[in-house]
């Protein structure tokens, strides 16, 4: 997208028209329905009343929603705090060349390709004290472990599951960043007698900065809309210890059929995501141009 050299051609619109139609059908149309619901009280399928911003006010004051939002933020920040350092560490220890590199790459990436509900199922089985390896091991160590009844443990289990599921993404991106560093940099560093820490601080980290920023934002956004894995593992419980935003929204929209509040909430949710998208977009463009510039040097 960095294109001072690209010619201006308005006919290119014809080429992106199919995409626009497609996405308009599956995104704009539904979104307009949401907007429509958010300002109406649907009493029956044939009767609805315009209520203005009433739902938005109600949603903003919803105590349960505040709790879910706080839980969500806590969760997303914990995810970042654990996965980013762990992913960098993993990328640094992955072999650089040969069949070992390929094998490790495939093994590390495997968890990313498992259907999300199967991820939930795997951990559901793994954590049970009667039939699961982890649950059994923990209870043999004398820990009274149960992700189904203890809120703290349920929360930690969901966190551990997310670390297991998504750390590979951070590792892969960091690994790709590391591989783009020319050998000459390392040679220069060893001539200067730079310590391992200095190499990391002044060569590897700056070179990974772009991809790491993408990793941080992707992980933040994806964990911000986590739904399936906790749905299968804990169903949002015990109580509402693992009810995150998507879970709460789905309960409202499909479970209780509160169309108005659910729609208003959807829009607020969407706007939060939009804000982070904007940041991510600008970062991605910057990374793209940086790479091309350094490629020309």
């Amino acid at each position: 997208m960095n294109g001072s050299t690209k010619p201006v051609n308005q006919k290119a619109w014809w080429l992106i028209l199919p995409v626009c139609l497609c996405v308009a059908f599956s995104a704009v149309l539904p979104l307009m329905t949401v907007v429509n619901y958010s300002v109406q009280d649907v009493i029956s399928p044939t009767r609805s009343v315009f209520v203005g911003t009433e739902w938005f006010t109600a949603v903003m004051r919803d105590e349960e929603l505040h709790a879910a939002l706080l839980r969500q933020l806590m969760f997303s920040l914990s995810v970042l705090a654990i996965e980013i350092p762990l992913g960098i560490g993993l990328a640094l220890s992955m072999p650089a060349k040969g069949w070992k590199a390929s094998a490790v790459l495939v093994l590390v990436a495997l968890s990313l390709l498992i259907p999300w509900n199967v991820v939930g199922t795997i951990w559901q089985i793994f954590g049970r004290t009667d039939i699961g390896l982890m649950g059994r091991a923990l209870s043999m160590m004398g820990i009274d472990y149960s992700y189904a009844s203890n809120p703290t443990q349920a929360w930690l289990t969901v966190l551990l599951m997310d670390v297991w599921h998504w750390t590979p993404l951070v590792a892969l991106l960091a690994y790709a960043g590391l591989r783009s560093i020319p050998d000459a940099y390392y040679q220069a560093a060893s001539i200067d007698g730079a310590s391992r820490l200095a190499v990391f601080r002044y060569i590897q980290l700056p070179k990974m900065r772009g991809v790491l920023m993408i990793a941080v934002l992707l992980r933040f956004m994806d964990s911000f809309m986590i739904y399936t894995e906790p749905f299968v593992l804990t169903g949002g419980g015990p109580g509402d210890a693992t009810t995150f935003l998507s879970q709460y929204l789905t309960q409202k929209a499909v479970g209780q059929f509160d169309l108005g509040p659910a729609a208003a909430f959807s829009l607020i949710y969407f706007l939060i995501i939009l804000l982070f998208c904007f940041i991510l977009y600008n970062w991605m463009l910057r990374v793209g141009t940086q790479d091309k510039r350094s490629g020309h040097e």
Partner: protein
Amino acid sequence: MNNTPRFRVRTLFLIVYLVFAMLPIYWMVNMSFKTNQGILSSFSLLPKNFTWDNYVTIFTDPSWYNGYINSLTYVALNTVMSLAVALPAAYAFSRYRFLGDKHVFFWLLTNRMTPPAVFLLPFFQLYSTLGLMDTYWAVALAHLVFNVPLAVWILEGFMSGIPREIDETAYIDGYSFPRFFITIFLPLIKAGVGVAAFFCFMFSWVELLLARTLTSVNAKPIVATMTRTVSAAGMDWATLAAAGTLTIIPGAIVIWFVRHYIAKGFAMGRV
């Protein structure tokens, strides 16, 4: 770089992580070769009475194997549709500037990032109105929301790596745009098309929420079949484990072919 103790610490860390990554999967595969009594009565690291019965159940019971066929059908439909519309768009973004190009590109990104939960209710109503509920098309169309933007981003990244001189030479040689695109340009970005197809396949394959809501009987995907077993009384752990193991296999095979491009795909072509 290669002073030995340092190297050992790193290898150790890597091995510990890989064990952590593999243990849950190993446990499920292990369980899939046991009987339900075997799972509940004894706790063993390897199946004592090794059995293929759970896999036999899945491959002979239509309500199970149809789940896989349904999933693969809408995933394939979705992948083909996504690529068909994304290819020309990605070309436009990588080669030209036009009114509002950056805004459209950003708008596409927001669709990749919108929580599916937001679209749940409207989709339900839209597809009910159109009579598409419980068909492959409903799920395939719904998954376009996040797959089309992803495909455009990945393909744009690959296409920008092809020098523009190639296009210009082809036009001077008298190629028309469609002929140039199919006979010259597509072969050059084969890898990109493969990676984009893989990511469309993957994200459609792992998604549950929309797929489950938009189907009931005829097009019910395997991921939904599994959740209903979970909620049934008297857990059929062994079959569940076998079904889970089978869902991992397609990804595990295809991943080998795209291993060098995985990071590029996840970063939407920006690495």
